[in-house]
């Protein structure tokens, strides 16, 4: 029995390819498969070429493959662009009203038109054809449409049914076995980040739209009432971080999100978070840069930027989730750490994690929201009182007994501006202490993940979303994978342990210089080979397999 199926659906922007990807994923989820959806779309609203690859597997997967079983083409372009991906045994489902190909051609455009429906409904028609080919009962298709298409639901079901029946000739040509697994929630990385934040105590999300971070704002704004939060879209990213810091100073857990360009605008306030010690959690979802770069594609080129953004020396945390569960749980951690230590925390991800869809398994009962160090109300309140660990207790405006003075200048314990050399030195020492304190805290946590064969002396080291493809390839070749979850403080204590004795260390990253590899080398760990990709696309499993085969 075939273990996995990959379906590519393609058309123009405006054809509803994203929704098609989503409904196909739901369909496969319903019959017990683990799902991963990769979305590929240019930065335009109409025209161009959009596609989604939906990969379903009997086992957990975190990446897609280049090779596909079924190609669903809503236009000719899709055939020309993707035929090469087809495996030997394959099927093309296409709209014969607009497209020529060999396979299952049905006049989807006409069927939809005859029913007086807009052309976008062709994507539901295609879903009907696919279900028939895969031998999935129509009742499941009906359920999926009901739960995901809110407008003209009945008509959509009728269209799907007509196409389902007319696809009889190819019925069961890719008959998949229905698995016993319970279906799982399907979420994008950004949705997982949003929900993780809520479980971490988020009350206010503030952002200015920028792909690929925007969907966190969209999702939280849509669900703000049931999630007990508020959302704001201010004038620009400087306004975003300024507002968030005001709210955090007043005691409310906030988060902000952006991509490289917006993060660049925020950097002065990032430094303010360091000086004034304001908990500031920022999601930085990377896309290819410099400047506007390639807005709707992916990259891991902002690692050094995240590590070094902001003037001056101050403590920060950079955490880099690589899959859907990490996105969820590490966002809780990000909020915890920001508030425990009153520092900026950057949650570094990329388009590939933010916008890909995964089967998710979240256990809400596992979540621990740490309480920050709060002032006990004794004596006079001093916002920057010097302590052993560098962390001063928090009080908030509105407290009768405390006067809370926050300062962007170097200041004394009370928060009054100073230029006194001794106090300036003490300010730095306070921040240095916090760096040490955070490092000690991380030493108690899982900072590095290991996959594959832990005994292998060939080690693949990677970070963020790239771990999806790397992990799968490592299984094929029986190699070890090392993935740091935290990049600042850099878990050198753990990495050294896991890299010791390796004969060959291979770095795999989606950027042009090998930023993690460089970081490792600064820290004295040699990386033997670098596999880098910088075309805006993530590694697929088969592509990476080829590259690693050549090195081994």
């Amino acid at each position, binding site marked *: 029995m075939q273990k996995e199926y990959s379906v590519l659906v393609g058309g123009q922007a405006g054809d509803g390819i994203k929704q098609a990807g989503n409904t196909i994923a739901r369909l496969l989820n319903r019959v017990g498969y683990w799902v991963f959806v990769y979305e590929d779309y240019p930065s335009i609203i109409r025209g161009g070429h959009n596609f989604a690859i939906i990969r379903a597997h009997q086992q957990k997967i975190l990446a897609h493959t280049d090779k596909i079983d079924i190609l669903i083409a809503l236009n000719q372009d899709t055939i020309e662009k993707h035929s090469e991906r087809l495996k030997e045994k394959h099927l093309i489902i296409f709209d014969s009203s607009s497209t020529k190909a060999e396979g299952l051609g049905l006049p989807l455009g006409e069927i939809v038109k005859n029913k007086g429906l807009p052309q976008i409904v062709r994507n539901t028609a295609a879903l009907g054809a696919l279900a028939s080919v895969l031998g999935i009962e129509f009742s499941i298709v009906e359920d999926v449409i009901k739960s995901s298409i809110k407008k003209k639901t009945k008509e959509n079901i009728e269209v799907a049914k007509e196409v389902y029946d007319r696809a009889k000739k190819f019925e069961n040509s890719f008959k998949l076995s229905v698995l016993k697994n319970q279906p799982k929630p399907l979420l994008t990385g950004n949705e997982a980040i949003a929900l993780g934040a809520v479980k971490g105590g988020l009350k206010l999300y503030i952002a200015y739209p920028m792909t690929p971070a925007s969907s966190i704002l969209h999702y939280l704004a849509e669900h703000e009432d049931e999630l007990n939060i508020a959302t704001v879209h201010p004038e620009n990213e400087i306004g975003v971080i300024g507002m968030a810091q005001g709210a955090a100073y*007043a005691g409310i857990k906030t988060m902000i999100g952006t991509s490289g360009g917006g993060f660049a605008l925020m950097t002065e306030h990032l430094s303010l978070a360091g000086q004034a010690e304001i908990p500031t959690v920022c999601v930085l979802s990377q896309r290819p840069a410099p400047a506007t770069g390639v807005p709707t594609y992916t990259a891991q080129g902002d690692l050094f930027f995240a590590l070094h953004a902001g003037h001056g020396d101050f403590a920060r945390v950079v955490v880099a989730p690589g899959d859907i569960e990490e996105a969820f749980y590490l966002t809780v951690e990000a909020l915890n750490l920001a508030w425990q230590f009153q520092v900026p925390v950057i949650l570094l991800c990329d388009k590939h994690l933010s916008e890909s869809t995964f089967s998710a398994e979240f256990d809400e009962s596992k979540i621990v929201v740490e309480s920050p160090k709060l002032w006990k109300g004794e004596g006079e309140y001093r916002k920057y009182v010097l302590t052993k660990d560098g962390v001063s207790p928090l009080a908030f405006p509105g407290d009768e007994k405390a006067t809370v003075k926050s300062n962007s200048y170097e200041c004394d314990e009370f928060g009054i501006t100073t230029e006194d050399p001794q106090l300036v030195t003490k300010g730095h020492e306070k921040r240095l202490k916090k760096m040490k304190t955070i490092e000690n805290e991380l030493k108690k946590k899982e900072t590095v993940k290991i996959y594959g064969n832990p005994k292998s002396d060939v080690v693949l080291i990677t970070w963020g979303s790239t771990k999806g493809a790397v992990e799968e390839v490592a299984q094929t070749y029986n190699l070890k994978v090392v993935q740091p979850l935290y990049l600042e403080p850099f878990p050198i204590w753990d990495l050294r342990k896991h890299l010791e004795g390796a004969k060959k260390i291979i770095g795999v990253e989606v950027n042009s210089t090998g930023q993690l590899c460089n970081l490792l080398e600064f820290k004295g760990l040699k990386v033997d080979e670098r596999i880098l990709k910088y075309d805006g696309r993530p590694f697929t499993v088969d592509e990476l397999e080829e590259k690693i085969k050549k090195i081994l």
Partner: protein
Amino acid sequence: MKIEDLKTYTENTWCPGCGNFGIEFAAKQAFVELINEKKIKREDIVILSGIGCHAKIVDYINVNSFYSLHGRVPAPATGIKIANPELSILGFAGDGDAYGEGLVHLIFAAKRNSDITMVIHNNRNYALTTGQFSPTSPKGFPGRSTPKGSPEPPLNPLELMLVSGATFVARAFTGNPNHLKEIIKQAILHKGFSFIDVLQPCVTYYNTFEFYRKTVYELKDHDSSSREAAMKKVKKWNYLDGEKGKIPIGIFYQVKKPTFEEIILKEKKPYGLPIPSLKKLLKRHNS
């Protein structure tokens, strides 16, 4: 509560005779009176500042404060108000600060009618950086960056605030601190975005005391509920010195509109509510 109760131990470093003293006095006196009148509580006051000579004011007043960055005051001020609508938020900013570096934040705070008060110490130069021209310096101002005279005409911040949607627009003069105090009190009590442009002589780089003393007069018989009337009065003086005529001070415009915080928080105030279970929502991702 007496004015001395709001003093900090900080040594004041403004130049003797600086107009900032008048603002510090007026703000403190306004707080004291509002506290004694039981209209606000001391612990609910939060003051903010940008960066510049004006900004030192937060070190001098013993209430909650947020010393922010150059130009950015309206952003954290709005954030504080969203986080805790019970608080009274007063932002102090310079003219370089609010009308130059961070103008967009000021316009948007006015546009969204955030319930905060902005007091602009308008000394019409960049004082802390040693006297360069600012957005409200008269054309030809011989600042250090424009020794041949500033090439740009000034902007009229009151006009700008009126068209941006501010629901309280006023001007005051530090040489008339009691009048300024009254305006600050009313601005704090106003529900919505309050804006006060304060004519603040800088004795070191642009001493305008004598000029203002001669030209400033208090608005009388003015209908502050009319935008047209306000616009007319606001245009009486366009920050072009040497111009004939007089400078009106007082409240030009005041209307009541729903505030930004009321709109976005609705009835709910999310902060008191528990962290929700995700069960139901996740179910919708799984069907």
